């Protein structure tokens, strides 16, 4: 394999929300680097700041401190429209609640990001079909999501996430609403996309079973990264390990 290429570089990332008199510091001093092709799980109890971190990585929110580089671009320098384009091209989102648009077909849902990318309707159909085939739903193109099982819905959502061929799949508790079996299928799908297509996968989860299948875990507690390294056996993971030294020095 060639030299690892950084996809996400966070330096001293912080996010503070103004809350009446006092400010609420949800994230502070977060630094890490995720290379292309990695498979990372971000873990942490609720309220730890892991969701905020995910929204920052997903360019839906902007940091109040530090810098975040995504695919070589400092996101703080981008306008709203440029951020939207970045989300569209570089990132594919997968949510816990699927967030498919009701009363439309699977195909239309999957084609939606391509519309914002300015792709022609014909080409959209073709690529949405391919994406659905990739997740194993090639036979259910015209089904509305309401008539699908949870696992199927999440697979439609994954097809929607990969349809723009993004570098990064950013998943927020993707198995949170699924039963064990469907959860395992979805996890396997992520692994396949990671291994076969080279998509970088970043999952936010508090499911230790899923975290253990990732090749790297980031553990967030109280707004700080307390662990960064390979998944640890033994549940729960109590260890507080030194953050890894994988962050490159600021240029």
């Amino acid at each position, binding site marked *: 394999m060639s030299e690892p290429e950084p996809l996400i570089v966070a330096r001293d990332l912080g996010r503070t929300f103004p809350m009446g008199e006092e400010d609420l510091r949800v994230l502070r001093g977060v630094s890490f680097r995720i290379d292309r092709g990695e498979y990372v799980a971000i873990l942490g109890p609720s309220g730890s700041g892991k969701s905020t971190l995910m929204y920052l990585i997903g360019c*839906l*929110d902007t940091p109040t401190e530090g810098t975040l580089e995504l695919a070589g671009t400092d996101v703080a320098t981008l306008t709203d429209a440029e951020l*939207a384009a970045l989300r*569209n091209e570089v990132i594919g*989102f997968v949510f816990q609640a699927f*967030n498919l*648009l009701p009363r439309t077909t699977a195909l239309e849902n999957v084609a939606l990001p391509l519309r*914002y990318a300015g792709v022609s309707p014909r080409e959209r159909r073709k690529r949405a079909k391919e994406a659905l085939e990739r997740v194993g739903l090639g036979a259910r193109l015209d089904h509305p999501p309401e008539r699908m099982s949870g696992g199927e819905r999440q697979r439609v959502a994954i097809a929607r996430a990969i349809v723009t061929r993004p570098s990064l799949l950013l998943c927020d508790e993707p198995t949170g609403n699924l039963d064990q079996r469907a959860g395992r299928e979805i996890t396997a799908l992520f692994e396949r996309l990671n291994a076969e297509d080279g998509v970088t996968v970043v999952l936010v989860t508090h499911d230790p079973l899923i975290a253990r299948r990732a090749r790297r875990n980031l553990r967030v507690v109280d707004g700080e990264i307390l662990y960064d390294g390979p998944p640890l056996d033994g549940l729960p993971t109590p260890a507080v390990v030194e953050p890894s030294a994988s962050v490159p020095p600021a240029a």
Partner: protein
Amino acid sequence: MLEYIRSALSALLANKVRAALTMLGVVIGVLAVTLLVGVGDGARLYIEHTLEGIGANLLFVTPGRRETRGSMAGPRGGNVTRPMTMEDVRALERQGTLIREVTGATQGGGTIKYKDRRRDTLVFGVGAAFPDLRNMHVGVGSFVRQEDVDARRRVAVLGRTVVRELFGDENPLGKSIRIGEARYRVSGIMEEKGASLGMDLDDMVFIPVTSALDLFGTDALGSIMTAAKNKDDVPAAMAEVDDILARRRHGEREVTVQSQDDLLATFGQLTNAMTWMLLAIASISLVVGGIGIMNIMLVSVRERTREIGVRRALGATRSDILWQFLVESMALSVLGGLIGLALGMAIAFAVRHAAPDVPLAVSPWIAMVALSSAVVVGVISGVVPARRAAKLDPVEALRYE
């Protein structure tokens, strides 16, 4: 843009009942605009048509001076220092070069009696030139003749309504009637004329103007009617009439000369004012319709908060979201407008067939006004909700339950 329209339509289809109810406000608004403006427009066309029928190049002289072109009703009496008399009529006949015939006219109420029947009607004293000038012609017998005027003869020409009321099936020609206490011989019957501007033109009696002056006990004419020889000469003819009458008044300009165009302009002002007033009333219902749309769009933005967050995550810009909701509210109002317009035209069509007398006209400009006001309503009532949707923070929108 096509994309926005397509997704707006599918969003509306997803909630048909709500969309239909929301549209109803605009439907009613546009229907009101179409019909009320149609009534105003119809009235204008009707009046124009009627005034054009009163006689070409007609000049209408009334006592008293008014500088502005105003209402038909002059200040009778008022600042009149010298009445118009038959002498003035003769002066115009002698000296006028740009005018054709002249007739003095005076009118008043009178009770017509035949045997034991009576009818209160309008008695119109006119000269022989009247039928030609006013385009009202005798049907049977003869109209008032010049010698009748000169000899102050007591002959009467009856309108159809008067004939019907007094004579029934009897032939009135040559019969003797009473107007007031004086006896008149019926010399003719007018053609059926119908109603015009709210006046039954068949419910009147014509007698020689000189006899009418005797009847009313005065020398003062109510008006003098004449006509310019050519359409192009109307302004010059008006000036000539004014000059001739002023010379007879030691240079005092004490009369008002109006042309048919003046009357048209006067009524045009009137009907325009009416049309605008009706339009104003109708636009109130459009405003209400617009408020309905805004209300529903605000609800819709709230309900679809999470969808907005998802779309933003998938790459929609703020302006994508803005346009999505703006187009949706425009689609609501334009569809409502089209339905309202179609209903309005259907009703106008039905009315025209059921009651041809009711002035109701749906012209292309109403369609334009109605549709463009629907678009305006859609934009205005869509702006606030669409801006609210576009301004949503994507993270908060995604977390919204």
